[in-house]
């Protein structure tokens, strides 16, 4: 507790750990990590949101645990230790969800493997938690998870809207303008396929770098 008195838990510095991954240090569009799962779960908005929250939670707690262990981990086997910690966390959470909130666990079951192997989780543990105190590590993990989720949600928004005409399963583009109902519109089928996620991520990176000039590579 004495540490907290020296530095408030939500000091400007700590908040920065939480918020910098949203834009300036975003894991997907700046660090280019976690692209593979971004392709897999962004066909619809709902799985993207579930995945975003799960990764934020796992990333936060993996960072916390590894930061607590950081002084005892032998550096030669640290990657294996990280993997064990992350996998254990994910499986524990999945087991508890299966017992108490079965519906949520069914939603998540497909993504458990994707969460464990998500390079953002390991990337943050390796780059941040092993050299930082627990609380900043936890914030950094949550921040990076949410920063990843933000991109997931943006990509999924465009893919579901133009690929299926719906958002979260609700119809946004009215049935009446579809070609099959006598209108002129039809869904953009390519939106449903993985390459389109890459192209959208590319467009986001383009827009982001035009805005943040300092990120542009010379």
């Amino acid at each position: 507790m004495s540490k907290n008195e020296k530095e408030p838990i939500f000091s400007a510095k700590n908040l920065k750990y939480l918020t910098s991954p949203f834009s300036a240090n975003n894991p997907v569009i700046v660090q280019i990590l976690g692209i593979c799962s971004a392709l897999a779960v962004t066909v619809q908005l709902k799985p993207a949101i579930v995945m975003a929250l799960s990764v934020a939670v796992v990333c936060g707690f993996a960072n916390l645990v590894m930061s607590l262990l950081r002084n005892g981990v032998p550096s030669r086997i640290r990657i294996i230790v990280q993997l064990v910690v992350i996998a254990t966390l994910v499986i524990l959470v999945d087991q508890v969800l299966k017992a108490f909130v079965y519906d949520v666990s069914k939603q998540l079951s497909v993504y458990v493997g994707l969460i464990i192997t998500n390079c953002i989780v390991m990337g943050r543990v390796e780059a941040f938690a092993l050299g930082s105190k627990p609380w900043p590590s936890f914030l950094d993990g949550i921040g990076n998870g949410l920063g990843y989720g933000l991109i997931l949600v943006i990509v999924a928004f465009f893919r579901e809207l133009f690929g299926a005409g719906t958002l979260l399963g609700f119809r946004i583009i009215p049935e009446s303008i579809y070609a099959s109902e006598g209108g002129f519109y039809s869904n953009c089928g390519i939106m449903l396929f993985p390459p389109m996620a890459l192209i959208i991520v590319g467009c986001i990176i383009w827009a982001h770098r035009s805005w943040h000039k300092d990120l542009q590579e010379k």
Partner: protein
Amino acid sequence: MNKNSNTYIIVYSVVMVVVVALLLSVTALSLQSRQNANKLNEKKNAILASLSASDKNYDEYITAYAVNADGEKVEADVFAQMEDLKGSFEEGIFPVFEAQDGRVVVPVTGSGLWGPIWGYVALDSDMNTIVGAIFDHSGETPGLGAEIATAKHQAQYVGKQIFEGDEFVSVKLRKGGASQANFAHEVDAISGGTKTSDGVSNMLADSFRNYLPFFAGRRAAAAQDAAAEVEVSNEVNNESNE
């Protein structure tokens, strides 16, 4: 202490593995009964949902039993068989869930594009008309194959017939939409989910085929009942004529 010495690393890994193994097995064992109860409950709910009777009490409304390849009732623990439905089908034990009103639900199982798909199909008491279908999957692509688990897709099966006269034709998912000529036996396939759609077609045909003797028995019994009723009413008429 040298943290990179071999002894330290070996001791560290052994302790870590033992702790993690203990933690995971304690969690798994202590939560197992709750998890199994959830799974059983999910099956019961899916069965009721396929009958559009989610408000009914499963234990009062449904009788579960199993039939063999000749359509005769056999002794079996139905939910234990449901744990491995494919194996149960190969063994020749076919679970049936009969509702009080004579409608029956049969479980179906097959393969989609990425993994197993399964479901429950409820048939009206004529053993021909589908009154409801519930499908689920373990890993079909969201937005494409995974659409089979949506209410919108499942609603299409209601009213479809699995027999043409006395011939078994099953219900097929047709690319490009159900044709007018064969509307009673076809539903729209999922665009972009051709492999999963084919998987559902195969699943329905293969699973129903196991129950054909059972269906035939029930259809014959129903026809006899109908004939008997006609006779009874004829007799009544004769008596009144006399």
